[in-house]
């Protein structure tokens, strides 16, 4: 803390979320934001959010707000050995005010490595030998499905930076709550989920770069969940593509 040697212990006056669990477990529950079970939040994308970066993108999925900057390809760290193919370096961090109760705003190591693995397969690493591309994500506000949003935005930022890729990477998750599957869950739903499934894929190639399943799933549920995710990914990729086209045509208008 700036200017304070000993920070007194503080607490947030907002009540702890305990009651939501029970309301979500009722028979005919509706989602807290009144969406349908198979309906995603409205997605908003914009490229070129950070001028200092080679490429960047910003996205809002409901109240989840993420900004991603891409730097490079630039010189690899001195300690790195020679490599014929390029390197990808990912980092995901949170702001202190991203969560309802103020956090530490530290790096999220697990998400960093998952982001790396989700993108690695989509990038043509051979196109920038010896150098490194840095993908840095900052979650400005977190309200559920953070990782899928970060992955989608990161692939958009990579495209904005002109890094060669096989396809855009779109990511969507579903949560299993009781008997129902809900797509693109918000934090409250994630907190009381029985299982979660996330797919990151390249829709035009119909290839999956990452698939994570946690919790309790039956085989038909997994099939249903995967189909839901793949459909949503294809739609998401369309929105991302149109965002890229828009910014490209804007750039053309300016130059002409």
């Amino acid at each position: 803390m700036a200017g304070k040697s000993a920070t007194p212990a503080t607490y947030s006056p907002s009540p702890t979320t305990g009651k939501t669990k029970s309301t979500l477990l009722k028979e005919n529950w509706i989602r807290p934001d009144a969406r349908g079970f198979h309906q995603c939040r409205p997605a908003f994308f914009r490229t070129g959010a950070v001028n200092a970066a080679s490429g960047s993108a910003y996205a809002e999925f409901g109240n989840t707000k993420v900004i991603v900057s891409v730097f490079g390809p630039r010189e690899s760290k001195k300690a790195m050995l020679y490599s014929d193919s390029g390197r990808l370096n990912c980092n995901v961090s949170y702001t202190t005010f991203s969560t309802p109760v103020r956090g530490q705003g530290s790096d999220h190591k697990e998400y960093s490595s998952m982001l790396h693995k989700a993108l690695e397969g989509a990038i043509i690493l051979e196109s920038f030998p010896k150098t490194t591309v840095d993908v840095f994500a900052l979650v400005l506000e977190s309200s559920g499905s953070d990782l899928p949003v970060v992955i989608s935005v990161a692939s958009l930022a990579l495209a904005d930076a002109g890094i060669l890729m096989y396809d855009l990477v779109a990511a969507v998750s579903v949560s299993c709550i009781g008997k129902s599957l809900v797509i693109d869950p918000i934090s409250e739903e994630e907190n009381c989920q029985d299982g979660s499934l996330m797919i990151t894929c390249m829709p035009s190639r119909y290839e999956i770069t990452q698939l994570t399943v946690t919790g309790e799933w039956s085989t038909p549920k997994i099939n249903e969940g995967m189909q839901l995710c793949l459909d949503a990914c294809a739609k998401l990729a369309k929105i991302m593509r149109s965002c890229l086209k828009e910014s490209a045509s804007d750039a053309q208008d300016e130059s002409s």
Partner: protein
Amino acid sequence: MKKKNSKQSKQATQPKQSSEASQSKQSIQSEFSLLSIIISEYASLQCCIPPWRGICKIRRDDDCYDFAAYACTNQLEGEMFVEYDVTDIEVLIRSPSRLTKPEPAINQHKNKIKSHSSKNLTKTTEPRRRSESRHRKTLSSLKRMSLPNATEDLSSEMEVDAFRRLFPLRYFERHLAESIRPDGRPLKEARETSIFLGAVASANGSALVKIGSTTMLTAIKMEVMTPSLESPDEGCLAIDFHMPSICSPIVRPGRPAEAEPVLSKQLSDTISSSGMIDLKELSLVGGKAAWMAYLDIYCLDADGALFDAALLSAVASLSHLQIPAVAMNDDGKIVLMSEEDGQKQTTEQVNKEKRKLTLKSIPLSLTCILHKNYILADPTAEEESIIETHVTIVLDTSGQLISLYKPGGPVLAFTSAIQDCVALTRQRVKELKSFLDQANSAMEVE
């Protein structure tokens, strides 16, 4: 380029070159061959070559690309050998012909800025070719790339860019002589500024501020603490400035930027010494509970004048801050009052209504950079990197001086220069205050 392993050839030509150099001592800039200038400039650009040696040791790939780009665009004549050894690349250069140094026509460049077209930017360099007899081998591959009639527009465009990268100070001074800045602004004008309040939904107060492309996002979260014994009826304001790695290519994860703690301290000093906030207003129950306001500033895009933008966003978020209505429950804990269960519980209301802080005086600032006799307001990151003398002046809205920072730098700040900066800041503070009022009134309408 040609690979060569022996270094003998360079020694053959060096005596001649140095005699040439001594002849033209008086008019170094115009008479030295262009290459010598490049090489000596390279020496100053942290490349480990002594000036005027003819060997350029290139340590990083970037250096090599810069050099090659420059060589191409200026149609260097002579031979170029690239020697590979295990670690470094050495470039051995012999330049038998003399060329004039590049003269980017500043007027043309100015036109370019105004008209946003690159067509005015025709050839800015006229290489004069002399001593043709010594012109034995040319950089065949490099030269072919830059044949004048091949891609006229592109090569001249590259020239300005290369000049900008290689001689940043000279590039900058050419502009200053014409009273214009590389981004087309007059010297004393600040960049476009915008303030958006309430950007973070989950915070008690927040603001998004843009000055040019420098972007700051600030949010305040209110928490409850037990006040200290010395000041039982006062709350606390903790200001933290963050530079996440997304904001600039210089910041890497795990290695926080140097500016982070420096700016945090400057900001909290400025805000506490300005008397903007009465900490007694943050008290809840004397001696038992008080507000701790965590003010976190995130730099989302760093393009110079970080302090100004950070201070503006901190001030804006404080003007947007709403202290929530809270009550004390039976355990002596402070809890939020929600509409439905506020009445039925037997809690003691501490803060009945949402309220705003009264801001007494509002500190606002302007950073200027000083170079020779020039004063430039609101520098970009590029300008800050070239010129090291910064003066930051903080005034409150009544024009009172709150603080002044001049952290080192080679230019002495004379009284007159400081006075000029204060006058500029006074104007800017008025401008910023009106932006802030506009943003606040826009919030009230909503």
